[in-house]
Protein backbone atom coordinates (compact mmCIF):
# COMPACT_ATOMS: atom_id res chain seq x y z
CA UNK A 1 0.00 0.00 0.00
CA UNK A 2 1.28 3.43 -0.87
CA UNK A 3 1.23 6.00 1.87
CA UNK A 4 -1.59 8.54 1.47
CA UNK A 5 0.04 11.18 -0.73
CA UNK A 6 -0.58 14.77 0.26
CA UNK A 7 -3.29 16.39 -1.83
CA UNK A 8 -3.87 13.70 -4.46
CA UNK A 9 -5.50 14.66 -7.77
CA UNK A 10 -7.79 11.65 -7.69
CA UNK A 11 -8.68 9.67 -4.63
CA UNK A 12 -10.74 6.49 -4.95
CA UNK A 13 -12.00 5.56 -1.48
CA UNK A 14 -13.41 2.19 -0.64
CA UNK A 15 -15.55 1.91 -3.78
CA UNK A 16 -17.99 -0.99 -4.05
CA UNK A 17 -20.30 -1.86 -6.94
CA UNK A 18 -22.84 -4.67 -6.95
CA UNK A 19 -24.71 -6.15 -9.87
CA UNK A 20 -27.48 -8.22 -8.35
CA UNK A 21 -25.67 -10.56 -5.97
CA UNK A 22 -22.29 -10.19 -7.64
CA UNK A 23 -19.71 -7.83 -6.19
CA UNK A 24 -18.06 -6.32 -9.25
CA UNK A 25 -15.92 -4.05 -7.07
CA UNK A 26 -15.26 -4.62 -3.40
CA UNK A 27 -13.60 -1.88 -1.39
CA UNK A 28 -11.19 -0.44 -3.93
CA UNK A 29 -9.00 2.45 -2.75
CA UNK A 30 -6.06 4.19 -4.37
CA UNK A 31 -4.72 7.71 -4.93
CA UNK A 32 -3.29 9.38 -8.00
CA UNK A 33 -0.84 12.26 -7.85
CA UNK A 34 -0.80 15.07 -10.39
CA UNK A 35 1.40 14.14 -13.37
CA UNK A 36 1.39 10.39 -12.76
CA UNK A 37 0.67 7.67 -15.26
CA UNK A 38 -1.21 4.97 -13.39
CA UNK A 39 -1.74 1.59 -15.02
CA UNK A 40 -4.81 -0.36 -13.96
CA UNK A 41 -4.46 -4.04 -14.80
CA UNK A 42 -6.07 -7.34 -13.94
CA UNK A 43 -7.35 -10.50 -15.58
CA UNK A 44 -10.66 -10.45 -17.49
CA UNK A 45 -13.60 -9.76 -15.21
CA UNK A 46 -11.42 -8.17 -12.54
CA UNK A 47 -13.55 -5.00 -12.50
CA UNK A 48 -11.31 -2.61 -14.45
CA UNK A 49 -14.03 -1.40 -16.78
CA UNK A 50 -16.53 -1.15 -13.92
CA UNK A 51 -14.13 1.09 -12.02
CA UNK A 52 -13.59 3.11 -15.17
CA UNK A 53 -17.31 3.58 -15.60
CA UNK A 54 -17.60 4.74 -11.99
CA UNK A 55 -14.98 7.39 -12.69
CA UNK A 56 -16.88 8.66 -15.73
CA UNK A 57 -20.10 8.40 -13.72
CA UNK A 58 -21.83 5.94 -16.04
CA UNK A 59 -22.17 3.77 -12.91
CA UNK A 60 -22.87 4.89 -9.38
CA UNK A 61 -20.99 2.93 -6.71
CA UNK A 62 -23.14 1.49 -3.93
CA UNK A 63 -20.69 2.72 -1.33
CA UNK A 64 -17.45 4.63 -1.08
CA UNK A 65 -16.46 7.95 -2.61
CA UNK A 66 -14.40 9.33 -5.46
CA UNK A 67 -12.66 12.63 -4.81
CA UNK A 68 -11.28 14.69 -7.69
CA UNK A 69 -9.27 17.80 -6.77
CA UNK A 70 -10.63 17.37 -3.26
CA UNK A 71 -14.36 17.30 -4.05
CA UNK A 72 -16.64 14.36 -4.71
CA UNK A 73 -17.50 13.27 -8.25
CA UNK A 74 -20.56 11.37 -7.12
CA UNK A 75 -22.87 14.38 -7.06
CA UNK A 76 -22.07 15.12 -10.69
CA UNK A 77 -24.10 13.55 -13.51
CA UNK A 78 -22.11 11.91 -16.34
CA UNK A 79 -22.39 14.92 -18.62
CA UNK A 80 -20.69 17.15 -16.05
CA UNK A 81 -17.57 15.02 -15.67
CA UNK A 82 -15.83 16.54 -18.70
CA UNK A 83 -16.18 20.07 -17.34
CA UNK A 84 -14.62 18.94 -14.04
CA UNK A 85 -11.50 18.16 -16.06
CA UNK A 86 -11.75 14.44 -16.83
CA UNK A 87 -11.56 13.29 -20.43
CA UNK A 88 -11.87 9.71 -21.65
CA UNK A 89 -11.50 7.40 -24.62
CA UNK A 90 -13.47 4.21 -25.18
CA UNK A 91 -12.42 0.59 -25.33
CA UNK A 92 -14.16 -0.08 -28.62
CA UNK A 93 -14.19 3.06 -30.71
CA UNK A 94 -17.04 5.40 -29.93
CA UNK A 95 -16.63 8.05 -32.61
CA UNK A 96 -19.50 10.03 -34.14
CA UNK A 97 -19.43 8.13 -37.39
CA UNK A 98 -21.40 10.42 -39.68
CA UNK A 99 -19.33 13.48 -38.81
CA UNK A 100 -15.91 14.57 -40.00
CA UNK A 101 -12.76 14.12 -37.93
CA UNK A 102 -12.77 17.86 -37.24
CA UNK A 103 -16.38 17.86 -36.02
CA UNK A 104 -15.67 14.86 -33.78
CA UNK A 105 -12.88 16.78 -32.08
CA UNK A 106 -15.03 19.92 -31.94
CA UNK A 107 -17.60 17.97 -29.92
CA UNK A 108 -14.77 17.08 -27.55
CA UNK A 109 -14.50 20.82 -26.87
CA UNK A 110 -18.21 20.97 -25.97
CA UNK A 111 -17.56 21.35 -22.26
CA UNK A 112 -14.70 23.80 -22.84
CA UNK A 113 -17.10 26.25 -24.49
CA UNK A 114 -20.61 27.51 -24.01
CA UNK A 115 -23.57 28.61 -26.09
CA UNK A 116 -27.27 27.90 -26.36
CA UNK A 117 -29.49 26.81 -29.22
CA UNK A 118 -31.18 30.19 -29.68
CA UNK A 119 -27.91 32.14 -29.94
CA UNK A 120 -26.48 29.51 -32.26
CA UNK A 121 -29.54 29.60 -34.52
CA UNK A 122 -29.46 33.41 -34.72
CA UNK A 123 -25.63 33.57 -35.06
CA UNK A 124 -25.44 36.17 -32.30
CA UNK A 125 -22.05 37.93 -32.15
CA UNK A 126 -20.58 35.83 -29.35
CA UNK A 127 -21.27 32.61 -31.23
CA UNK A 128 -18.58 33.48 -33.78
CA UNK A 129 -16.02 34.14 -31.03
CA UNK A 130 -17.01 30.89 -29.32
CA UNK A 131 -16.61 28.90 -32.55
CA UNK A 132 -13.26 30.57 -33.18
CA UNK A 133 -12.05 29.49 -29.76
CA UNK A 134 -13.21 25.92 -30.38
CA UNK A 135 -11.43 25.89 -33.75
CA UNK A 136 -8.24 27.14 -32.13
CA UNK A 137 -8.28 24.19 -29.72
CA UNK A 138 -9.18 21.75 -32.51
CA UNK A 139 -6.56 22.99 -35.00
CA UNK A 140 -3.84 22.68 -32.39
CA UNK A 141 -4.85 19.10 -31.57
CA UNK A 142 -5.07 18.10 -35.23
CA UNK A 143 -1.45 19.25 -35.60
CA UNK A 144 -0.41 17.67 -32.32
CA UNK A 145 -1.78 14.24 -33.21
CA UNK A 146 -0.80 14.50 -36.88
CA UNK A 147 -4.22 13.89 -38.35
CA UNK A 148 -4.27 16.93 -40.66
CA UNK A 149 -4.49 14.78 -43.79
CA UNK A 150 -7.84 13.31 -42.74
CA UNK A 151 -9.22 16.28 -40.78
CA UNK A 152 -12.08 17.03 -43.16
CA UNK A 153 -12.98 13.46 -44.02
CA UNK A 154 -15.95 11.66 -42.49
CA UNK A 155 -14.89 9.31 -39.71
CA UNK A 156 -16.62 6.27 -41.25
CA UNK A 157 -14.10 4.31 -43.30
CA UNK A 158 -10.89 5.64 -41.72
CA UNK A 159 -8.32 3.10 -40.49
CA UNK A 160 -8.58 1.88 -36.91
CA UNK A 161 -5.24 3.33 -35.78
CA UNK A 162 -6.19 6.76 -37.11
CA UNK A 163 -9.54 6.64 -35.33
CA UNK A 164 -7.79 5.86 -32.05
CA UNK A 165 -5.82 9.10 -32.51
CA UNK A 166 -9.04 10.95 -33.36
CA UNK A 167 -10.54 9.72 -30.09
CA UNK A 168 -7.46 10.83 -28.21
CA UNK A 169 -7.71 14.27 -29.81
CA UNK A 170 -11.41 14.41 -28.93
CA UNK A 171 -10.67 13.55 -25.29
CA UNK A 172 -7.92 16.18 -25.12
CA UNK A 173 -10.18 18.85 -26.63
CA UNK A 174 -11.99 19.21 -23.30
CA UNK A 175 -8.59 20.30 -21.89
CA UNK A 176 -8.62 17.67 -19.15
CA UNK A 177 -6.33 17.45 -16.15
CA UNK A 178 -7.05 13.72 -15.92
CA UNK A 179 -7.20 11.52 -18.98
CA UNK A 180 -8.87 8.10 -18.73
CA UNK A 181 -7.70 5.70 -21.43
CA UNK A 182 -9.71 2.47 -21.80
CA UNK A 183 -7.50 -0.13 -23.52
CA UNK A 184 -5.90 2.30 -25.99
CA UNK A 185 -3.60 -0.42 -27.38
CA UNK A 186 -6.47 -2.76 -28.29
CA UNK A 187 -6.34 -3.64 -31.99
CA UNK A 188 -3.02 -1.89 -32.64
CA UNK A 189 0.06 -3.62 -34.04
CA UNK A 190 3.46 -3.78 -32.34
CA UNK A 191 4.89 -0.59 -33.89
CA UNK A 192 1.71 1.34 -33.25
CA UNK A 193 1.79 0.30 -29.58
CA UNK A 194 5.37 1.54 -29.16
CA UNK A 195 4.33 4.81 -30.77
CA UNK A 196 1.26 5.00 -28.50
CA UNK A 197 3.43 4.59 -25.40
CA UNK A 198 5.67 7.45 -26.50
CA UNK A 199 2.64 9.57 -27.28
CA UNK A 200 1.03 9.00 -23.86
CA UNK A 201 4.26 9.98 -22.11
CA UNK A 202 4.57 13.03 -24.36
CA UNK A 203 1.02 14.10 -23.57
CA UNK A 204 1.71 13.77 -19.84
CA UNK A 205 4.96 15.75 -20.07
CA UNK A 206 3.97 18.45 -22.56
CA UNK A 207 0.33 19.01 -21.66
CA UNK A 208 0.55 18.38 -17.93
CA UNK A 209 -2.13 15.70 -18.07
CA UNK A 210 -2.39 12.92 -15.50
CA UNK A 211 -3.19 9.57 -17.11
CA UNK A 212 -5.18 6.59 -15.85
CA UNK A 213 -4.61 3.69 -18.18
CA UNK A 214 -6.66 0.50 -18.28
CA UNK A 215 -4.78 -1.93 -20.45
CA UNK A 216 -4.30 -5.60 -21.23
CA UNK A 217 -1.04 -5.08 -23.04
CA UNK A 218 1.43 -5.72 -20.22
CA UNK A 219 4.56 -4.43 -21.96
CA UNK A 220 2.94 -1.06 -22.57
CA UNK A 221 1.70 -0.72 -18.99
CA UNK A 222 5.03 -1.71 -17.46
CA UNK A 223 6.98 0.57 -19.84
CA UNK A 224 5.16 3.82 -19.17
CA UNK A 225 3.39 3.58 -15.79
CA UNK A 226 4.71 5.24 -12.64
CA UNK A 227 2.35 3.22 -10.50
CA UNK A 228 0.46 0.03 -11.29
CA UNK A 229 -2.74 -1.07 -9.53
CA UNK A 230 -3.76 -4.71 -9.94
CA UNK A 231 -7.37 -5.86 -9.56
CA UNK A 232 -8.63 -9.39 -9.33
CA UNK A 233 -12.24 -10.46 -8.71
CA UNK A 234 -13.22 -6.92 -7.74
CA UNK A 235 -10.46 -6.48 -5.15
CA UNK A 236 -7.18 -4.64 -5.25
CA UNK A 237 -4.45 -7.26 -4.84
CA UNK A 238 -1.38 -5.15 -5.42
CA UNK A 239 -0.18 -1.60 -5.95
CA UNK A 240 3.30 -0.20 -6.55
CA UNK A 241 5.98 0.48 -9.13
CA UNK A 242 5.95 -1.76 -12.23
CA UNK A 243 8.94 -3.70 -10.87
CA UNK A 244 7.39 -4.26 -7.45
CA UNK A 245 4.07 -5.36 -8.92
CA UNK A 246 5.70 -7.77 -11.36
CA UNK A 247 7.56 -9.41 -8.48
CA UNK A 248 4.46 -9.65 -6.26
CA UNK A 249 3.59 -13.36 -5.78
CA UNK A 250 -0.09 -12.42 -5.40
CA UNK A 251 -0.06 -10.90 -8.91
CA UNK A 252 1.78 -13.84 -10.41
CA UNK A 253 -0.79 -16.16 -8.90
CA UNK A 254 -3.69 -14.10 -10.28
CA UNK A 255 -2.32 -14.19 -13.80
CA UNK A 256 -0.81 -17.66 -13.95
CA UNK A 257 -2.90 -19.58 -11.43
CA UNK A 258 -1.83 -21.40 -8.27
CA UNK A 259 0.43 -23.84 -10.09
CA UNK A 260 3.00 -21.12 -10.75
Amino acid at each position, binding site marked *: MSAAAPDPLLSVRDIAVQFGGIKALDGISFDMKQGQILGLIGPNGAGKTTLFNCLSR*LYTPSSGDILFKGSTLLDRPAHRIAEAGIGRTFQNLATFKNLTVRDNIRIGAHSASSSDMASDALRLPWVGRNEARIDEIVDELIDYLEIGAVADMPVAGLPFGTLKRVELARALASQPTLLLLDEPAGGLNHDEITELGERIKKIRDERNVTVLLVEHHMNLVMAISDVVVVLNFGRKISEGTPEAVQADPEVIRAYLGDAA
Partner: protein
Amino acid sequence: MTVQQEEVSAVEARQEQQARSVSAATISSLVVLAALVLCPFFISGFQTFQLNLMLIYAIAIMGLNLLTGFNGQFSLGHGAFYAIGAYTAAILIDTFGVSYVWTLPAAGVICFVSGFLFGLPALRLEGVYLALATFALAVATPQMLKLSILEHWTGGVQGIVIRKPKAPFDLPLSQDQWLYFFTLFVGLLLYWAARNMVKSRSGRAIMAIRDNPLAARSMGVNVALYKSLTFGVSALFTGIAGALGAIVIQFVAPDSFTFVLSVALLVGLVVGGVGWLPGAIVGGAFIVFVPNIAEEISKGLSGAMYGLMLILLIYVMPTGAGGLIRTVTDRLTRR
Protein backbone atom coordinates in the same frame (compact mmCIF):
# COMPACT_ATOMS: atom_id res chain seq x y z
CA MET B 1 6.79 10.33 -54.41
CA THR B 2 7.37 9.96 -50.69
CA VAL B 3 4.50 9.20 -48.38
CA GLN B 4 4.46 12.76 -47.13
CA GLN B 5 4.34 14.25 -50.60
CA GLU B 6 1.54 11.89 -51.49
CA GLU B 7 -0.36 12.93 -48.40
CA VAL B 8 0.10 16.62 -49.17
CA SER B 9 -1.07 16.25 -52.77
CA ALA B 10 -4.05 14.20 -51.63
CA VAL B 11 -5.01 16.98 -49.23
CA GLU B 12 -4.61 19.59 -51.96
CA ALA B 13 -6.73 17.60 -54.38
CA ARG B 14 -9.37 17.21 -51.73
CA GLN B 15 -9.39 20.92 -50.88
CA GLU B 16 -9.67 21.77 -54.56
CA GLN B 17 -12.57 19.36 -54.94
CA GLN B 18 -14.26 20.87 -51.90
CA ALA B 19 -13.79 24.40 -53.23
CA ARG B 20 -15.35 23.37 -56.53
CA SER B 21 -18.33 21.69 -54.95
CA VAL B 22 -18.83 24.66 -52.58
CA SER B 23 -19.02 27.09 -55.49
CA ALA B 24 -21.32 24.69 -57.36
CA ALA B 25 -23.56 24.55 -54.28
CA THR B 26 -23.63 28.36 -54.01
CA ILE B 27 -24.52 28.74 -57.67
CA SER B 28 -27.27 26.14 -57.58
CA SER B 29 -28.83 27.59 -54.43
CA LEU B 30 -28.87 31.03 -56.08
CA VAL B 31 -30.55 29.53 -59.16
CA VAL B 32 -33.19 27.82 -57.00
CA LEU B 33 -33.76 31.03 -55.03
CA ALA B 34 -34.13 33.08 -58.23
CA ALA B 35 -36.61 30.55 -59.61
CA LEU B 36 -38.63 30.68 -56.37
CA VAL B 37 -38.72 34.49 -56.46
CA LEU B 38 -39.63 34.80 -60.15
CA CYS B 39 -42.11 31.92 -60.47
CA PRO B 40 -45.25 33.68 -59.12
CA PHE B 41 -45.04 36.31 -61.89
CA PHE B 42 -45.39 33.71 -64.62
CA ILE B 43 -47.97 31.29 -63.24
CA SER B 44 -51.66 31.41 -62.31
CA GLY B 45 -53.04 32.30 -58.91
CA PHE B 46 -53.88 28.68 -58.17
CA GLN B 47 -50.40 27.53 -59.15
CA THR B 48 -48.93 30.19 -56.88
CA PHE B 49 -51.13 28.86 -54.10
CA GLN B 50 -49.80 25.33 -54.76
CA LEU B 51 -46.21 26.56 -54.78
CA ASN B 52 -46.94 28.29 -51.49
CA LEU B 53 -48.17 25.01 -50.01
CA MET B 54 -44.96 23.38 -51.21
CA LEU B 55 -42.93 25.94 -49.25
CA ILE B 56 -45.13 25.46 -46.18
CA TYR B 57 -44.64 21.69 -46.23
CA ALA B 58 -40.93 22.27 -46.78
CA ILE B 59 -40.80 24.27 -43.53
CA ALA B 60 -42.63 21.48 -41.69
CA ILE B 61 -40.26 18.88 -43.15
CA MET B 62 -37.27 21.00 -42.12
CA GLY B 63 -38.56 20.80 -38.54
CA LEU B 64 -38.99 17.04 -38.76
CA ASN B 65 -35.51 16.76 -40.26
CA LEU B 66 -33.94 18.51 -37.26
CA LEU B 67 -35.50 15.90 -35.00
CA THR B 68 -35.26 12.73 -37.10
CA GLY B 69 -32.39 13.45 -39.47
CA PHE B 70 -30.05 15.33 -37.15
CA ASN B 71 -31.02 14.05 -33.71
CA GLY B 72 -32.11 10.51 -34.62
CA GLN B 73 -35.49 10.69 -32.87
CA PHE B 74 -38.37 9.26 -34.87
CA SER B 75 -41.68 11.04 -35.14
CA LEU B 76 -44.84 9.72 -36.73
CA GLY B 77 -46.78 12.50 -35.08
CA HIS B 78 -45.58 15.78 -36.50
CA GLY B 79 -49.00 16.37 -38.02
CA ALA B 80 -50.09 17.08 -34.43
CA PHE B 81 -47.68 20.00 -34.08
CA TYR B 82 -48.73 21.22 -37.52
CA ALA B 83 -52.33 21.13 -36.29
CA ILE B 84 -51.51 22.98 -33.06
CA GLY B 85 -49.77 25.70 -35.10
CA ALA B 86 -52.69 25.94 -37.53
CA TYR B 87 -55.31 26.17 -34.77
CA THR B 88 -53.24 28.71 -32.85
CA ALA B 89 -53.21 30.97 -35.89
CA ALA B 90 -56.88 30.42 -36.72
CA ILE B 91 -58.11 31.02 -33.16
CA LEU B 92 -55.93 34.11 -32.69
CA ILE B 93 -57.25 35.61 -35.93
CA ASP B 94 -60.87 34.51 -35.56
CA THR B 95 -61.53 34.92 -31.83
CA PHE B 96 -59.02 37.55 -30.81
CA GLY B 97 -58.60 39.54 -34.02
CA VAL B 98 -54.81 39.29 -33.98
CA SER B 99 -52.98 40.19 -37.20
CA TYR B 100 -51.88 37.10 -39.14
CA VAL B 101 -48.21 38.16 -38.94
CA TRP B 102 -48.20 37.87 -35.15
CA THR B 103 -49.82 34.47 -35.13
CA LEU B 104 -46.57 32.93 -36.41
CA PRO B 105 -44.39 33.68 -33.37
CA ALA B 106 -47.33 32.70 -31.14
CA ALA B 107 -47.71 29.36 -32.94
CA GLY B 108 -43.94 28.89 -32.73
CA VAL B 109 -43.82 29.47 -28.97
CA ILE B 110 -46.84 27.26 -28.23
CA CYS B 111 -45.49 24.44 -30.39
CA PHE B 112 -42.01 24.77 -28.89
CA VAL B 113 -43.48 24.34 -25.41
CA SER B 114 -45.71 21.42 -26.51
CA GLY B 115 -42.81 19.75 -28.30
CA PHE B 116 -40.46 20.23 -25.36
CA LEU B 117 -43.02 18.80 -22.92
CA PHE B 118 -43.75 15.85 -25.21
CA GLY B 119 -40.00 15.35 -25.57
CA LEU B 120 -39.50 14.89 -21.82
CA PRO B 121 -41.35 11.56 -21.44
CA ALA B 122 -40.20 10.58 -24.94
CA LEU B 123 -36.63 10.62 -23.56
CA ARG B 124 -37.25 7.19 -22.14
CA LEU B 125 -38.25 5.82 -25.56
CA GLU B 126 -36.01 4.83 -28.42
CA GLY B 127 -36.54 3.94 -32.07
CA VAL B 128 -39.77 2.12 -32.83
CA TYR B 129 -41.16 2.76 -29.33
CA LEU B 130 -40.81 6.50 -29.79
CA ALA B 131 -42.40 6.13 -33.23
CA LEU B 132 -45.40 4.43 -31.54
CA ALA B 133 -45.75 7.16 -28.91
CA THR B 134 -45.72 9.88 -31.56
CA PHE B 135 -48.18 7.83 -33.62
CA ALA B 136 -50.55 7.96 -30.64
CA LEU B 137 -50.17 11.74 -30.60
CA ALA B 138 -51.08 11.94 -34.29
CA VAL B 139 -54.14 9.72 -33.85
CA ALA B 140 -55.39 11.58 -30.78
CA THR B 141 -55.08 15.10 -32.17
CA PRO B 142 -58.06 15.30 -34.57
CA GLN B 143 -60.40 13.97 -31.86
CA MET B 144 -59.05 16.39 -29.27
CA LEU B 145 -59.83 19.21 -31.69
CA LYS B 146 -63.43 18.04 -31.96
CA LEU B 147 -63.98 18.00 -28.15
CA SER B 148 -67.11 19.89 -27.21
CA ILE B 149 -65.38 21.68 -24.30
CA LEU B 150 -63.06 23.36 -26.78
CA GLU B 151 -65.76 23.95 -29.38
CA HIS B 152 -66.13 27.61 -28.46
CA TRP B 153 -62.59 28.24 -29.81
CA THR B 154 -62.03 25.41 -32.28
CA GLY B 155 -65.43 25.42 -33.94
CA GLY B 156 -65.72 21.68 -33.37
CA VAL B 157 -66.19 19.52 -36.45
CA GLN B 158 -66.97 22.61 -38.55
CA GLY B 159 -63.53 24.13 -37.98
CA ILE B 160 -62.72 27.82 -38.45
CA VAL B 161 -62.88 29.92 -41.59
CA ILE B 162 -60.52 32.90 -41.75
CA ARG B 163 -60.13 35.72 -44.27
CA LYS B 164 -57.20 35.91 -46.63
CA PRO B 165 -54.98 38.94 -45.90
CA LYS B 166 -54.22 41.55 -48.57
CA ALA B 167 -50.76 42.73 -49.60
CA PRO B 168 -49.71 45.64 -47.36
CA PHE B 169 -48.36 49.08 -48.41
CA ASP B 170 -50.39 48.97 -51.66
CA LEU B 171 -47.88 46.55 -53.19
CA PRO B 172 -48.93 45.59 -56.72
CA LEU B 173 -49.31 41.92 -55.74
CA SER B 174 -52.34 39.67 -55.69
CA GLN B 175 -53.30 38.08 -52.37
CA ASP B 176 -51.81 34.76 -53.49
CA GLN B 177 -48.58 36.37 -54.61
CA TRP B 178 -48.26 38.36 -51.40
CA LEU B 179 -48.82 35.31 -49.19
CA TYR B 180 -46.35 33.35 -51.29
CA PHE B 181 -43.62 35.92 -50.72
CA PHE B 182 -44.54 36.12 -47.05
CA THR B 183 -44.07 32.33 -46.76
CA LEU B 184 -40.86 32.47 -48.78
CA PHE B 185 -39.45 35.12 -46.45
CA VAL B 186 -40.39 33.16 -43.31
CA GLY B 187 -39.05 29.96 -44.87
CA LEU B 188 -35.70 31.52 -45.75
CA LEU B 189 -35.41 32.98 -42.26
CA LEU B 190 -36.08 29.56 -40.71
CA TYR B 191 -33.71 27.85 -43.13
CA TRP B 192 -30.99 30.35 -42.18
CA ALA B 193 -31.61 29.65 -38.48
CA ALA B 194 -31.65 25.86 -38.92
CA ARG B 195 -28.44 25.98 -40.94
CA ASN B 196 -26.74 28.16 -38.33
CA MET B 197 -27.79 25.78 -35.60
CA VAL B 198 -26.65 22.66 -37.42
CA LYS B 199 -23.24 24.21 -38.10
CA SER B 200 -22.64 25.29 -34.51
CA ARG B 201 -21.91 23.84 -31.09
CA SER B 202 -25.51 22.86 -30.31
CA GLY B 203 -26.02 21.36 -33.77
CA ARG B 204 -22.92 19.22 -33.36
CA ALA B 205 -24.16 18.17 -29.94
CA ILE B 206 -27.48 16.92 -31.32
CA MET B 207 -25.72 15.02 -34.12
CA ALA B 208 -23.32 13.52 -31.58
CA ILE B 209 -26.33 12.23 -29.63
CA ARG B 210 -27.67 10.63 -32.83
CA ASP B 211 -24.35 8.91 -33.57
CA ASN B 212 -23.34 7.82 -30.06
CA PRO B 213 -25.29 9.03 -27.01
CA LEU B 214 -22.88 7.49 -24.51
CA ALA B 215 -19.82 9.16 -26.00
CA ALA B 216 -21.74 12.42 -26.35
CA ARG B 217 -22.52 12.36 -22.64
CA SER B 218 -18.87 11.77 -21.76
CA MET B 219 -17.95 14.80 -23.90
CA GLY B 220 -20.16 16.90 -21.66
CA VAL B 221 -23.34 16.97 -23.75
CA ASN B 222 -26.47 17.06 -21.60
CA VAL B 223 -28.27 14.41 -23.63
CA ALA B 224 -31.68 14.73 -21.98
CA LEU B 225 -31.75 18.51 -22.29
CA TYR B 226 -30.62 18.58 -25.92
CA LYS B 227 -33.08 15.86 -26.95
CA SER B 228 -36.03 17.70 -25.39
CA LEU B 229 -34.88 21.04 -26.81
CA THR B 230 -34.57 19.50 -30.27
CA PHE B 231 -38.11 18.17 -29.92
CA GLY B 232 -39.23 21.68 -29.04
CA VAL B 233 -37.37 23.38 -31.89
CA SER B 234 -38.61 20.77 -34.35
CA ALA B 235 -42.21 21.35 -33.22
CA LEU B 236 -41.64 25.11 -33.48
CA PHE B 237 -40.72 24.83 -37.17
CA THR B 238 -43.61 22.51 -37.94
CA GLY B 239 -46.01 24.66 -35.92
CA ILE B 240 -45.07 27.82 -37.83
CA ALA B 241 -45.67 25.86 -41.04
CA GLY B 242 -49.09 24.89 -39.68
CA ALA B 243 -49.92 28.54 -38.93
CA LEU B 244 -48.89 29.55 -42.46
CA GLY B 245 -50.99 26.68 -43.81
CA ALA B 246 -54.07 27.92 -41.94
CA ILE B 247 -53.58 31.48 -43.23
CA VAL B 248 -53.05 30.38 -46.83
CA ILE B 249 -55.86 27.81 -46.98
CA GLN B 250 -58.15 30.16 -44.95
CA PHE B 251 -59.63 27.21 -43.15
CA VAL B 252 -58.82 24.73 -40.41
CA ALA B 253 -60.81 21.60 -39.52
CA PRO B 254 -59.90 18.56 -37.42
CA ASP B 255 -59.95 16.16 -40.35
CA SER B 256 -57.24 18.09 -42.21
CA PHE B 257 -54.78 16.94 -39.57
CA THR B 258 -55.15 13.18 -39.47
CA PHE B 259 -52.37 10.62 -39.25
CA VAL B 260 -52.07 10.85 -43.05
CA LEU B 261 -50.51 14.30 -42.69
CA SER B 262 -47.84 12.98 -40.31
CA VAL B 263 -46.99 10.20 -42.74
CA ALA B 264 -46.89 12.65 -45.64
CA LEU B 265 -44.32 14.74 -43.76
CA LEU B 266 -42.22 11.64 -43.10
CA VAL B 267 -42.44 10.66 -46.79
CA GLY B 268 -41.38 14.19 -47.75
CA LEU B 269 -38.43 13.95 -45.38
CA VAL B 270 -37.21 10.66 -46.84
CA VAL B 271 -37.72 11.77 -50.45
CA GLY B 272 -35.86 15.03 -49.82
CA GLY B 273 -33.00 13.42 -47.97
CA VAL B 274 -32.68 12.65 -44.26
CA GLY B 275 -30.14 14.94 -42.62
CA TRP B 276 -29.96 17.39 -45.57
CA LEU B 277 -31.83 20.67 -45.00
CA PRO B 278 -32.39 21.88 -48.62
CA GLY B 279 -34.02 18.52 -49.37
CA ALA B 280 -37.13 19.89 -47.65
CA ILE B 281 -38.07 21.74 -50.86
CA VAL B 282 -38.03 18.49 -52.84
CA GLY B 283 -40.05 16.81 -50.08
CA GLY B 284 -42.59 19.66 -50.08
CA ALA B 285 -42.93 19.44 -53.86
CA PHE B 286 -43.52 15.69 -53.57
CA ILE B 287 -46.30 16.16 -51.01
CA VAL B 288 -48.11 18.80 -53.08
CA PHE B 289 -47.63 17.69 -56.67
CA VAL B 290 -47.21 13.91 -56.79
CA PRO B 291 -50.77 13.09 -55.63
CA ASN B 292 -52.09 15.46 -58.33
CA ILE B 293 -49.93 13.86 -60.99
CA ALA B 294 -51.09 10.43 -59.83
CA GLU B 295 -54.69 11.54 -60.15
CA GLU B 296 -54.11 12.84 -63.65
CA ILE B 297 -52.65 9.52 -64.76
CA SER B 298 -55.57 7.50 -63.40
CA LYS B 299 -58.50 8.76 -61.36
CA GLY B 300 -59.54 5.34 -60.13
CA LEU B 301 -56.05 4.12 -59.28
CA SER B 302 -54.50 7.38 -58.03
CA GLY B 303 -53.42 5.73 -54.78
CA ALA B 304 -51.69 2.92 -56.64
CA MET B 305 -50.02 5.43 -58.99
CA TYR B 306 -48.80 7.43 -56.02
CA GLY B 307 -47.37 4.27 -54.48
CA LEU B 308 -45.70 3.30 -57.75
CA MET B 309 -44.07 6.72 -58.09
CA LEU B 310 -42.88 6.59 -54.51
CA ILE B 311 -41.31 3.17 -55.01
CA LEU B 312 -39.64 4.28 -58.27
CA LEU B 313 -38.28 7.40 -56.61
CA ILE B 314 -36.85 5.49 -53.65
CA TYR B 315 -35.38 2.97 -56.10
CA VAL B 316 -33.69 5.69 -58.16
CA MET B 317 -32.50 7.68 -55.13
CA PRO B 318 -32.39 5.43 -52.06
CA THR B 319 -30.86 8.22 -49.96
CA GLY B 320 -33.34 10.85 -51.14
CA ALA B 321 -32.69 13.87 -53.32
CA GLY B 322 -29.83 14.88 -51.03
CA GLY B 323 -27.98 11.62 -51.59
CA LEU B 324 -28.53 11.78 -55.35
CA ILE B 325 -27.23 15.36 -55.60
CA ARG B 326 -24.19 14.47 -53.49
CA THR B 327 -23.36 11.49 -55.72
CA VAL B 328 -23.75 13.56 -58.89
CA THR B 329 -21.62 16.48 -57.66
CA ASP B 330 -18.98 14.04 -56.44
CA ARG B 331 -18.81 12.49 -59.92
CA LEU B 332 -18.66 15.88 -61.63
CA THR B 333 -16.03 17.46 -59.39
CA ARG B 334 -13.78 14.42 -59.00
CA ARG B 335 -11.50 14.42 -62.00
